[in-house]
């Protein structure tokens, strides 16, 4: 009797059609994790969506009036007063935990909430990009979050927040390349690119070569690198410095 019922159940559960438009939407959706979409879902729910970032240091692509917002940015990291770094770390740790507290039911980061710690402070002028990591709950992998702090729109943790998941440990000398556009909630005409990821033992330097020819030196610390730059220029190559020298890896376009 049970077998017959089980057959009926199998047939019933497979009967009817699932909506084709839903399948279409789900299959064409851009699930790539290092783009702005997942971040914006979090940011949107929080009301901490990335604010409009006007102006970049590249004169060729920004209006003169917009340059001021990023005037202090530099392609090489600078140093920040301890108090500013400490404040950025606190702001970003709070922002990440707050984001996850609200979105845990949907995003499912319950295992990592409260365990985030800053691992890299990438300072460029008056901006600090804070990279935080936390155990992912899956093996020895870690989730990471990048949080851009600075003057104006970025002063109270309402700046860019991007989340990434599942980085595992790397072999010595290796770098896990990754970057994504920070797209302000008010539009993608202006923005910035954030590059973060883990590095293997022995890596002492990471430099990005952008499509516009600019070289951006990342900050490397605690097994990770972090860098960011205004605009939408993507890296075409990455330079890795170890104790054995410097190697260059080109990225497919």
């Amino acid at each position, binding site marked *: *009797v*049970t077998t017959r*019922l*089980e057959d*009926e*159940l*199998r*047939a*019933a*559960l*497979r*009967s*009817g*059609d*699932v*909506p084709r438009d*839903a*399948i279409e*939407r*789900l*299959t064409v*959706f851009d*699930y*790539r*994790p*290092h783009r702005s*979409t*997942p971040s914006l*879902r979090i940011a949107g729910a929080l009301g901490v969506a990335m604010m409009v970032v006007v102006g970049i240091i590249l004169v060729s692509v920004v209006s003169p009036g917009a340059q001021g917002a990023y005037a202090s940015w530099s392609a090489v990291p600078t140093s920040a007063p301890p108090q500013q770094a400490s404040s950025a770390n606190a702001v970003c740790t709070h922002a990440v935990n707050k984001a996850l507290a609200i979105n845990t*039911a*949907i*995003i*499912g980061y319950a295992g990592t909430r409260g365990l985030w710690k800053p691992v890299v402070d990438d300072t460029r002028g008056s901006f600090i990009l804070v990279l935080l990591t936390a155990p*992912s709950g*899956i*093996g020895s*992998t870690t*989730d990471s979050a990048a949080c851009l702090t600075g003057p104006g729109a970025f002063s109270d943790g309402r700046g860019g927040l991007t*989340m*990434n*998941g*599942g*980085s*595992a440990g790397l072999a010595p000398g290796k770098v*896990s*390349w*990754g970057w*994504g556009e920070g797209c302000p909630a008010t539009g993608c005409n202006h923005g910035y690119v954030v590059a973060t*990821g883990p590095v293997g033992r022995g890596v002492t330097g990471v430099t990005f070569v952008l499509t516009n020819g600019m070289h951006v030196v990342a900050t490397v610390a605690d097994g990770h690198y972090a860098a960011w730059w205004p605009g939408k220029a993507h890296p075409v190559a990455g330079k890795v410095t170890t104790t054995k020298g410097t190697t260059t890896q080109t*990225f*497919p376009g």
Partner: protein
Amino acid sequence: MDWLRRESIRGEFERFVSDATPTLLRTGYYLTWDFAHAEDLLQEALLRTAKRWPVVRKMGHPRAYVRRILVNPALAEAGTRVREGNELEPDEFFDQLTDQGQEEAALRVEAQSDLLAALSKLPIRQQVVVVLRYLEDLSEAAVAVELGWPLGTVKSTTARALIHLQQVSATSQEASRDEPHVEVNEQ
């Protein structure tokens, strides 16, 4: 995150999404009885899976990973539904069942509708087990692993669900026998 740069892995993920979505959406529906909610849940589950794809793909059972993300919120929300007194009813799904214009087929559709309606009224844990067992065709042992439950719990939960559904099925069959015979003439 560097999997973005590797076309082969990215293509693998996209194929997985394409292959798995129809069944996973159906699974999501039977956990929520709402296609819009199921679509949202599945999209979030796939987003999470994408973030960890380099790890998930090595586990060998990415579909199980997504299913688990789908099932956990359903189990977590079950209490809320009860407290709010919101009776979950299968609705538009039944409207989509094809009217085949034949008595036998119509009765079968009706019986399936009764069965699914009964399923929707079971406790959420029984629903989850039934869906995993008979839609996803997982063994009891596989369900136990996927849900992190003892095997005995899966067996007893399945048994309770089947006993209830058996009563519905029997009632439905009796009712169909009592129906007056109707000739159907196809034009």
